[in-house]
């Protein structure tokens, strides 16, 4: 990649913060008084040292050379390059350093160490409506917010009608913003942001505000922008949105780049890692709800080769196996179910019942039984899913219900003649269809 095609070059960026250390507790009046007299000096030292890290190095923190207790590294030696037109998604759990990275690249905060080079007009959108003043009218705020985001007065003027039309608040444009509903405010603010024309765009979780319709509009605008060849750096917890928009992903954990590569690979490793850490997937820590007359003790996902598996291609067969320990005998058990939920949306997408094929148990005695549920040719769209299992006899609460005990990922494959990828925004389930001309 020649330098000319590089939009962003980040070299060993580190960022250190000082966090509050514990306040002392005084045992008697005398020491409290003494501390009170001494406190201005102590406070002065504390507030003075907030940004001084001369003695600390990013590679410290090892056992032999521990950091002072009140220092945390939000970013350590982060390096990557971004080509022009690339759309990069940054993922990671809370506190991984994603927002800090964006703040440094937007020049809001200074790095403690390292260097970044940005080529081209950069706009950062860490919040919608920065600089909005409640006393000013919508019109005034459009100009103010537009210039805050880096447009010139002339540019805002040229796009003003477009912005107002996009926001849909034409009628109230000369009303002070303090009288707007919060939805109107957000719409107007986003309309301004949507009309920026940067070469590099940095977007934080701004899409998390607003209702579903608004989020959809934001995502639509974002993908339009990304198709226009703008380099984008996007932070979100919405893995679905990231996978749709981005071509490349960076996974940050504890301030370090854990993985950098193709977005699908990065998100699936990230999600897998959250699975591993998630002790709730261990059967011992499952939360059981129900009468307890029977307990689900164990569950696995298998592929057709009977190997444990958590990633399936579209069109592959999924096998779910689970054990049930009956603590009582029953004349019949005819109500068992497996639910499949889409992780990103929380939507239950499949409800598989034993009645589907007329399966039931007769004269159940105390003891353990093992079951297998087969989903032949599963055509769920690519994404992440969780499985819950239920056993009962048709009564209200049932014997046992364990929620989200298995996780799996669906990935692309050519299940039809379609060459474009199947995207989670298009649909949830692909049903084969037969077409003919009449």
């Amino acid at each position, binding site marked *: 990649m020649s330098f000319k095609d590089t939009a962003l070059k980040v070299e060993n*960026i580190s960022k250190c*913060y000082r966090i509050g250390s514990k306040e002392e507790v005084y045992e008697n009046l005398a020491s409290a008084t003494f501390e009170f007299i001494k406190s201005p000096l102590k406070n*002065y030292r504390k*507030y*003075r040292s*907030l*940004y001084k890290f001369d003695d600390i190095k990013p590679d410290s923190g090892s056992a032999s050379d521990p950091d002072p207790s009140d220092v945390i590294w939000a970013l350590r030696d982060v390096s990557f390059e971004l080509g*022009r037109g690339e759309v990069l998604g940054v993922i990671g759990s809370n506190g991984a350093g994603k927002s800090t990275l964006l*703040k*440094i*690249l*937007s*020049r*809001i*905060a*200074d*790095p*403690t*160490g*390292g*260097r*970044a*080079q*940005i*080529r*081209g*007009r*950069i706009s*950062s959108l*860490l*919040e919608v409506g*920065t*600089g909005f*003043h409640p*006393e*000013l009218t919508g019109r*005034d705020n459009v*100009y*103010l917010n537009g*210039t*805050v*985001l880096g*447009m*010139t*007065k002339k540019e805002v003027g040229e796009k003003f009608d477009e912005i107002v039309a996009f926001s849909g608040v034409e009628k109230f444009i000369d009303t*002070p913003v303090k009288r707007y509903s919060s939805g109107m405010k957000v719409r107007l603010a986003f309309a301004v942001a949507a009309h920026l*024309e940067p*070469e590099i765009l940095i977007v934080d979780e701004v899409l998390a505000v607003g209702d579903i319709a608004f989020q959809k509009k934001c995502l639509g605008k974002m993908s*339009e*922008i990304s198709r*226009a*060849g*703008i380099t984008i750096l996007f932070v979100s917890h919405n893995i679905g949105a990231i996978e749709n928009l981005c071509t490349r992903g960076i996974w940050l954990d504890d301030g370090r780049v854990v993985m950098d590569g193709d977005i699908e690979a990065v998100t699936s490793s990230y999600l897998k890692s959250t699975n591993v850490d998630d002790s709730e997937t261990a059967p011992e820590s499952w939360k059981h709800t129900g009468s307890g007359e029977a307990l689900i003790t164990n569950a696995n996902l298998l592929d057709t080769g009977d190997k444990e598996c958590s990633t399936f291609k579209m069109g592959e067969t999924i096998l779910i196996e689970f054990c049930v320990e009956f603590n009582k005998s029953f004349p019949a058990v005819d109500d068992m179910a497996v639910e499949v939920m889409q992780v990103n949306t929380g939507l239950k997408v499949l409800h598989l019942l034993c009645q589907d094929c007329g399966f039931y148990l007769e004269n159940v005695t105390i003891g353990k039984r093992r079951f297998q549920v087969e989903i032949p040719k599963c055509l769920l769209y690519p994404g992440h899913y969780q499985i819950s299992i239920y056993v009962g006899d048709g009564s209200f609460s049932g014997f046992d219900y364990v929620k989200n005990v298995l996780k799996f990922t669906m990935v692309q494959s050519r299940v039809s003649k379609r060459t474009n990828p199947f995207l989670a925004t298009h649909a949830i389930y692909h049903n084969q269809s037969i077409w003919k001309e009449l």
Partner: protein
Amino acid sequence: MNRSRSISDSVTVVEPASGWQIINFKELKQYSDLFYFMVWRDIKVLYAQTVLGFSWAILQPLIQIILFTIIFGKVARISTEGIPYILFSSVAIIPWTYMSQAMAQSSQSLVGGQNMLGKIYFPRLIFPITPILAKLVDFGISLVIILGLIIYYSVQPTWNLLFFPVLILLMMSIAAGAGLWLSALAIRFRDVRHAMNFILRMLMYSAPIVYSASSIPEAYRFIYSLNPIVAVIEGFRACLLGTPMPWQYVWPGLTTAAILLISGALYFKRMERIFVDVI
């Protein structure tokens, strides 16, 4: 979205700040539209939803002038070298009102704008300088009081009036210098807000606003002259009322004001990269 514009060649480098920085005037110019709107916002918002609107810009100093005239002019009978006390005090109170308000607002500009500070980048200098310019509107309006009094007392204009723009610049630099220092300090130490009240009170009594500079003993005049506010107030009297130009105050005042402004700008630039981290 139309992408006709060619890719710009501008390269932005993000690096840890090192040591002293000078002001980047080129960058400030790029952000001139934003600067304009920030000033304009301050002006527009100030008297939003008030009945009297911009009349407050006249009423505020006017009430103080009347109070001072009654207390210091009629009751305490402070010597004004023959100038009617109301005239004597109004040419002082009006620039002082500007300086005190601009300083107070400028010192709180970063703390007040911390939400914006953490969300978007633009030259941080815009924060403390905005009130310095926005308050000029109030100042301009309140000059009507002086104009009215000059006509009423039929004061003849003199050539000293030519120095008026210099004094206004001096007045603005004092407010800007103090604002730069105090705003950069206030973001780290919130003590500034609590101290501001008595700092302003002390500054007011340190300058010849209610009294005349001639009542300061000769031996202390030099130290006294180092306060640039003295130069502004005595200068205003000379310009508008025709008393001799007080060069013994103006030269030292210009010097200290320049030092205050330059040191303030340097300190602000040194601190600006850490503002976000210490909010």
